[in-house]
Each structure stands twice: as structure tokens, then as C-alpha cells.
């Protein structure tokens, strides 16, 4: 696969650039979240940090003939999914609590 990310010079540059761009954009958008919603924001971020499951999947898919690596990869995938599912569920629970009244109003 002719993948630019595996290029010895361009790969790192692109990856670091993407990191910087995402951080700056994220910073600008998250700045608008009011302190009222900071706890759900944090648990939502916990869930998003479970995106590391992608790394675990890649590692697991490529290391299927190396048993120790495979076990580590599967453990990482399971742990990351704890983050993803748990984080989103907890966030959902909290956000629903905040908007409970709005829903009741809508139903009336």
C-alpha cells in the first residue's frame, strides 16, 4: 500500500500536523461548553479517548501470529471499549438528567 503515513519524513509530519489542527479546532469548539455541562463533557471525553480501540484493533489484526502481542491487543481493545461504552452511557445518563424538564415540557 502506497501510504503517505508510512513515509519516513512525510508520515510523522502529517501525523503531527493533524494532531495540532485537531487540538486547535477542538479547543475553539469546546471553549463554548458552559461550566454547567463540564462533568458530562469530561465523561464524554473519556468515551472519546476510548478511540484508542482503533490502535488496539490494528495491532490485533496485524499480530495474529504473535500470541503475546495478540493477547495485549485484545486486552487493550476490551479496556478501550470499557471507556467507549461506559463513557457514552454515563454521559447520556447525566445529559438526560439535565434535559429532563425540557422533555416533560414537550410532552405536555
Amino acid at each position, binding site marked *: 500500500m502506497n501510504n503517505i503515513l508510512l513515509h519516513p519524513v512525510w508520515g510523522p509530519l502529517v501525523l503531527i500536523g493533524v494532531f495540532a489542527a485537531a487540538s486547535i479546532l477542538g*479547543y475553539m469548539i469546546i471553549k463554548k461548553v*458552559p461550566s454547567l455541562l463540564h*462533568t458530562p463533557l469530561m465523561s464524554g471525553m473519556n*468515551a472519546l479517548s476510548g478511540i*484508542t480501540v482503533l*490502535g488496539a484493533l*490494528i495491532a490485533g489484526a496485524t499480530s495474529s501470529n504473535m500470541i503475546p502481542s495478540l493477547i495485549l491487543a485484545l486486552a487493550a481493545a476490551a479496556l478501550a471499549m470499557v471507556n467507549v*461504552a461506559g463513557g457514552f452511557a454515563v454521559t447520556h445518563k*447525566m445529559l438526560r438528567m439535565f434535559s429532563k424538564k425540557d422533555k416533560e415540557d414537550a410532552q405536555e
Partner: protein
Amino acid sequence: MNPILFYILSAVLSGLVLFGLSMQSKVKSAVSGNLVCVGVMCFAILLTLVNANAVFNWKLWAAMAVGAVISLIWAKKVKMIEMPQTVALLNGIGGLASALVGSIELVSSNSTVFADITAALALVIGAVTFSGSLVAALKLARIFDSRPSKLPGHSTISILLLALCLIGVALAAFGFRIASLIICTVCALLFGWLFALRVGGADMPVAISLLNSLSGVAGALAGMATANVLLVAVSGIVGSSGLLLTQIMCRAMNRRLMDILLGKTVAIGKTAEKQTDITAESSVKITVPEEEPIEQSPAFSLKNAKNIIIVPGYGMALSQAQHKVKELCSRLEANGASVRFAIHPVAGRMPGHMNVLLAEADIDYEQLYELESINDDFKGCDVVIVVGANDVMNPAAREAEGTPIYGMPILNVDEAPEVIICNYDLRPGYAGVENPLYSRSQGLRLLLGDAKESLEILIGEL
């Protein structure tokens, strides 16, 4: 899959994450915003599996299912009061996952120098996040003593461990993979442990935010090691969010991040001596309100009050008094009073802690006001009810130069004509600074003891 198509899809998904997060800045759209992020996550997992030709790899699916099922059961059971430690623990697990990905990439032989370095860094930062969050969670769950604990030579050991971590990363760059793996894992775990051990209770919001940011950085590094743009982009967003919260928390406490990291929690030496004098003095004054005529019970002023502000603090969380607060609030409103809540950004143990507890008790979020928007109204209100808050309304922050809280933005509770304080005792709060409000001679009622019981008395008298 064609790499170009993969990049385009990654960019779209990252954009959708940002869109979902922007929806989370309004209460009304926040639930949908969260669901957008859930959708992105599912699609990202599928995309990655397709890209790695592993859609039918049942082991991967099984591992993911195990993690998801366990955490969904856990999330269903978790109570709002346990939210700070839940957030900390989840954060730690995310760090551990990134550390594992880093270690796998580190030992795999067919990688570039850049991949080796980023893998080692992901391992280090992930491990620090894991052990740091674990200690933070144990402290928040009050299994560990929440006071900052300092070992002999704490700073020296920390710096030494950090240096060893860097050496471990350097070893990875020169191809000594196994040595790097061992040094990085051990030193980073110890460093994270020592780091969180030194952070005290009220500094927890800062520590959690910072660890949140680190878990993002660890993920991004794991993404660089596995050359996955999507992982790098989303983790970058997580990292910046944590950093932003850290900044907000530091500003709200008027603390420098470095002071908290170095455990300069309270200037114990001089201030402690001064405080003992003040305590002796103030204990005399405190008795004054109790000597007032009995017919002027706290409820008397509440009955006639039209404009009431409630200030909640960590004490409310400790005694789980939020439902009693709601009951009191409903009573007062039935009396024709307007009730508002003044919420200090660092009240409690994590960003937004008070808001979550009050929302749990069915208090309308439109009644919750931030420091800046309500601070000028304390003058004009009739009564302020303080429920388990101390440092966030300590007027010493304005006057007492040299104390740890000097310069910290506070709620102007002292400007109110009438203050009812439902605190456990009159000891100084976390910052260790005596609160001059307690010795005020007029317009002060003290209901000491468990906040829940104090509120019950108030409700009973109404």
C-alpha cells in the same frame, strides 16, 4: 481500502466529532450531540476493521463485546454521587488501553524510528494516566486519604523517575525495545502514582482535568505509532479539551498549574500559626448569633424572604443533601420566593460537580448561575443559604494577602444582608484559611452538623 478514501472518511468523522461536541454546548442539543459521537465511534471501528481486513476477526469482536458489556452494566448501576471517581477511573482505563497499544507497537520489530519513539511515549503517558487516575479515583472514593501525602524526597524521586522515562524512550529510538518497555512501564507507573498522591482534595478538579488531557495525548501518540490519522485527530480533541478544563480550573482557584503539580497545596508553615490565634478569637464571636432571641429562628427570615440564593459546596455532596436542597427550594418557591443557585467553578471535586448533583435532584438548570452572572446579586438578595461550602465564599480571598486563597475569585456571600450557613463545622476549608464570615456579628445563622439534618430542621420550621 484506498488510502485517499480512508483519509477523506477520517476527516469527515473527525469533523462530525467536532460537530457533536459543539452540540454539547447547549443543554437542549447535548443528548443528540453525545449520540453523534457514539455514531462516529461505531463507524470508526467498522472503518478500521475494514481497512485492516479484519471484519471477520471474531477475537477482536469478542474482546470489544466483553469490554462494552461490562461497562454498560457498570454505567447503569453508577450513582451520581460516585461520578467523580467514575470519571477518574474511566480516564485511567483509557490511559491503560493506550499504554498497551504503545507497548505492542514498541515490541513489534518492523517499525520506523518515529513509530518506536511515539510508541514508547504512548506507553509512558498512558501508564502515568493510568496510575495517576487510579490514585485519584481511590482518593475521590475516599478509600485513600484525600489529603495530599508527601513521601520523603518526593520531588527528587519524581524527577528521577521522569528522567528514567526519557531514557527509556531514548532506548526505544536506538532499538533496545525490551529494555525500553520495562523501564518505561515501571517508571511511568510509579511517577503517576507519586504525582496523584501529592494532590489534595480540593485540587482534584485540576488533577482530573489534567489526567483527562493526558489520556488524549496518550491516544494521539498511540495513533502516531500505528499511523492512524483518525485516532490522532480524535485524541487531539480529547487532549485539548482536558487542557482547556485544566486552565479554567486553575484560573478559578487562582493557582498556578505547577504549584498543584508540585504539591504546594497549602502554605502550612506560617498561616497555620496565625490561624490558631484567629480561631481562639472567633470562637467567642461565633456564640453571638446563638444568643439572639429564639423567635428569630432561621426559618423566620426565610419565610419573609423573596429573593434567595443557595450556595452549594462539597459538603452538600458529602452528606448527599441535594434532595433536601430541592425540597427546601420547592418550599420556598411555594412561599412565593425566587430561588437561585450560585455555583463556583471549583465547588466540589470535579468540573461541574455541583451542577450534576443538583440536576439529579430535579433542580432546573436555568436556576443554576455561574459565579460571574450572579455575583453582583448577593447585595440585593434577602437571604443566602450556604450548604457545605467554605473556601469558595471566603472573603479572606479578597483581603488576606499571603494566604493560599488570596486573589481567588469568590462568591460575594458576605455582601448579603442575611446568611444561613449549613456547614459541618467552623473549621477552615481545604485551603486552611479561617473564614471571617463565620465571625460576622449581624445577619448570620449557623446550623452546624450534617447538612442534610440542618436542612431538615429548616424545612420543618418553614
